[in-house]
């Protein structure tokens, strides 16, 4: 530790942050080692991925860049829209139409020298799993459950367990997740294998309630019923085969006009164009202040994970500013059997099993029921469903023995990407499997040596 007592205080950008990082403290993490080295290491080596460059993402990039992090990357598939400008402060009117990730990265780098931000203008699924393993911490600024779930799956897929089913520390990929809706929000810290992952507490995000079709068709009572009738029933009747595009203003106007007609017919008040957009696009109201609050909490926790300079949030913070101000910290517990962050489903296989037979088994397995599987082992594609080039390249593996394909290892982790049914809906999922070959002597007692 640096002896700070004799240093002369020079003007420094990290004037304020140094107080926290260079001085010993009493309410800190067990491995906090204050000193200039800690600050310098944070700047040099910590690498954070910000997922989403929207309301939370813009704030997160700024907050992290001003919290000692210098190596940042940001991923977002969206382009800037006018409705973003009331809160996504890195964007200007002339940026509308440009990729969010690129503009956000550029703006922050322009203002804060020394910070490097690499933008990725693509879908999160477009990146290899290995891409995500390159980061010390992943910060999530997302507005969809599906995207959170995907990143959570990826981060948890790196997690390995030792033979006692304890998580191996160096494989833990910490995540910090934020979310807002109007005056409400949450911030949470996910340490896979230690604190609950997104999937362990998926019940915190109940699915959206849908109106029964018979209500829409026969007994509409509210403005929303009229709008959803036009959107879900009338559109298909009139535009056979033409999909409804919520971003096409003509399509939206058509739904609105039809909803007005229906509302007039039944004497139902309340259909407006704005409300129609809200119902059809499931618009979540969003404001700058809540995003700022939640992102700041996430950035602070990111710093604490990286440096242990204070206690950490354990493990879920809710914020509600609509009636006074209520903040609450809840310590949720892990689901030991979680398919995503748990030790994984152990499959004992005969060494003679072919890849095709293995995939059939995944489909039949009661806990997995996984079809259309793409299989990877230690980052190597054993079989890929798509794109067609990769499918063709890996097709010949199907008839080969899985044991050979896995380099004759007696046991190892295999990642499988595929489709599963959940509440009668087909969803894509990523699963971790602990494959153990019967009758083969282990060279290691680690149940999960290696991994992705």
């Amino acid at each position: 530790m640096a002896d700070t007592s004799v240093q002369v205080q020079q003007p420094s950008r990290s004037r304020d942050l140094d107080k926290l990082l260079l001085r010993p403290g009493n309410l800190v993490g067990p491995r906090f080692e204050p000193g200039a080295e800690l600050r310098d290491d944070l700047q040099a080596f910590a690498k954070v991925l910000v997922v989403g460059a929207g309301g939370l993402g813009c704030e997160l990039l700024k907050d992290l860049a001003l919290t000692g992090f210098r190596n940042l990357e940001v991923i977002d598939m969206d382009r800037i829209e006018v409705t973003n400008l009331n809160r996504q402060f890195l964007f200007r009117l002339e940026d509308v139409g440009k990729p969010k990730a690129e503009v956000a990265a550029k703006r922050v780098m322009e203002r804060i020298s020394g910070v490097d931000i690499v933008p990725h203008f693509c879908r999160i699924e477009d990146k290899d799993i290995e891409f995500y393993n390159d980061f010390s911490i992943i910060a999530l600024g997302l507005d969809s459950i599906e995207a959170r779930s995907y990143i959570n799956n990826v981060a948890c897929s790196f997690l390995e367990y030792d033979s006692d089913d304890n998580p191996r520390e160096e494989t833990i990929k910490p995540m910090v997740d934020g979310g807002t809706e109007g005056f409400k929000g949450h911030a949470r810290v996910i340490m896979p294998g230690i604190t609950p992952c997104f999937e362990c507490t998926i019940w915190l995000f109940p699915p959206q309630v849908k109106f029964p079709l018979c209500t829409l068709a026969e007994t509409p009572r509210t403005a929303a019923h009229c709008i959803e009738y036009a959107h879900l029933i009338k559109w298909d009747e009139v535009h056979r085969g033409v999909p409804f595009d919520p971003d096409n203003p003509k399509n939206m106007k058509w739904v609105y006009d039809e909803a007005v007609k229906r509302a007039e017919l039944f004497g139902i008040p309340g259909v407006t164009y704005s409300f129609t957009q809200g119902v059809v696009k499931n618009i979540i109201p969003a404001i700058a202040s809540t995003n700022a609050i939640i992102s700041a909490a996430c950035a602070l926790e990111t710093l604490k994970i990286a440096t242990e300079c204070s206690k950490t949030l354990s493990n879920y913070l809710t914020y509600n500013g609509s009636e006074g101000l209520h903040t609450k910290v809840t310590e949720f517990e892990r689901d030991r059997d979680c398919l995503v962050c748990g030790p994984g489903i152990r499959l004992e296989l005969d060494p003679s099993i072919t890849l095709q037979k293995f995939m059939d088994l995944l489909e039949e397995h009661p806990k997995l029921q996984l079809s259309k599987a793409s299989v990877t082992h230690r980052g190597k594609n054993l079989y890929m469903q798509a794109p067609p080039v990769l499918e063709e390249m890996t097709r010949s593996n199907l008839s080969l023995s899985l044991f050979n394909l896995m380099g004759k290892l007696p046991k190892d982790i295999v990642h499988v990407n595929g489709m599963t049914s959940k509440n009668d809906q087909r969803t894509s999922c990523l699963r971790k499997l602990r494959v153990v070959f019967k009758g083969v002597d282990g060279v290691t007692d680690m149940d999960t040596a290696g991994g992705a």
Partner: protein
Amino acid sequence: MAEPKVKYDRQLRIWGDQGQAALEKSNICLLNCGPTGSETLKNLVLGGIGSITVVDGSKVEVGDLGNNFLVDESSLGQSKAKCVCSFLQELNDAVKAKYVEEYPDALIETNPSFFSQFTLVVATQLVESSMVKLDRICRNANVILIFARSYGLTGFVRISLKEHTVIESKPEHFLDDLRLNNPWPELKRFAEGFDLNVQDPVVHKHIPYVVILVKMADEWAKNHGGRLPSTREEKKEFKELLKAGMVAQDEDNYKEAIESSFKVFAPRGISSELQQMLNDSSAEVDSSSSDFWVLVAALKDFVTNEGGGEAPLEGSIPDMTSSTEQYVNLQNIYQAKAEADILAIERVARNTLKKIGRDPNSIPRATVKSFCKNARKLKVCRYRLIEDEFNSPNLPELQKYLTDEDYSIAMGIYILLRAVDRFAANYNSFPGQFDSAMDEDISRLKSTAVGLLNDLGCNSATLAEDLINEMCRFGAAELHAVAALVGGIASQEAIKLITRQFVPISGTYIFNGIDHKSQLLLL
């Protein structure tokens, strides 16, 4: 410029055109534009606040580049207020942005009338002595004041104004106003038009649950000397009767009736909170009374007379299983009653206005309507002068907080945030501001805090040593993430106060960035 309706779409869905208009009319002053102040204004400028005035006398230093996004390298050596102001302007050209290059402490001292031009003042990073003076100035000028401070991993937000009244408090969970425990004649008559024993199963399963409950409650009352179910057994029996009325398993309307049966059992009349408001001395109105209190006076009259103990009906009903026609008819019954109640209150209010020498039409009908619709949800927030709280805090509360497991850390932060200002007044620097005097500062801060507690009359109280150490470690650092969080809260509160929607915080919000166990302290 973008079409504002589109640009502000996501927030208009929260506070509507009226809330937005209030924001666009308001005139905000920021004192000190470090990161806490800059972030507060950033959020307000994005939302389209009317005008801002940034007051700061300092020049941008290298250290500011590390915690404030609104200054950059080209700002070094320049007026901080000017640099922050020009970046804020870049965020939204609809906002009028000005700056004053002057130290807030000096301005408070020399030019108190400066503040009366503003709707709201956000005072950041002020020390106690300046807070107390500014508070008095703003209170006298009727200007809303928000204090915000970031200090290491801690901070606070405190609102100060005499009184803030809210019509549209928009609570998230609030019982709908169906009057099933006290139906008015038209609703009863409407219910009588239905036959619960109707043979057609399609008709039977489309009887709105409101009708089912009104009829069943009426039946019950006839058999029980006019009383509604009140004991646990009676309630259970009532639900059994509902269940017995079902003719098929899939009757959603009956399921809804059973789930909503508690609305029949609920006590009649207004809540104790509303009763307290009606009893408030402000409800005795005179020519100086605000529109809000004139309407409360009218409400009081209504509750005692026409209302028969009830507030005006809200007039909206939730969605429920029903045929379209019957649902619309039911909606009309509720709306007609709400309209009648509005007329009754409006009549009283106009009379009252005349009596106190005001133009009887000076309160717009739309306001009366909104008031009646929200009558059960009205809110009055009052704030102590900060000087009063500092000199004579609510001692029993303070003692309770200090020893309560959930509150003791937040209370400790509150005391220490005050102690650091006392410390600074005595020693000309904040504890731990310089590396050289850490150990000495820790013991000095401890004795300062003990002295403060003694002055407040908490002789036996102790503060956690760890927390005292941490406060010295923080050395008055203004960390960006903490500033963004505290500033975010300050801007959120500013929006609630200006739009007069939702409920602002009461008391002092203590931010605890150590483990996020922040608390609201009422002292």
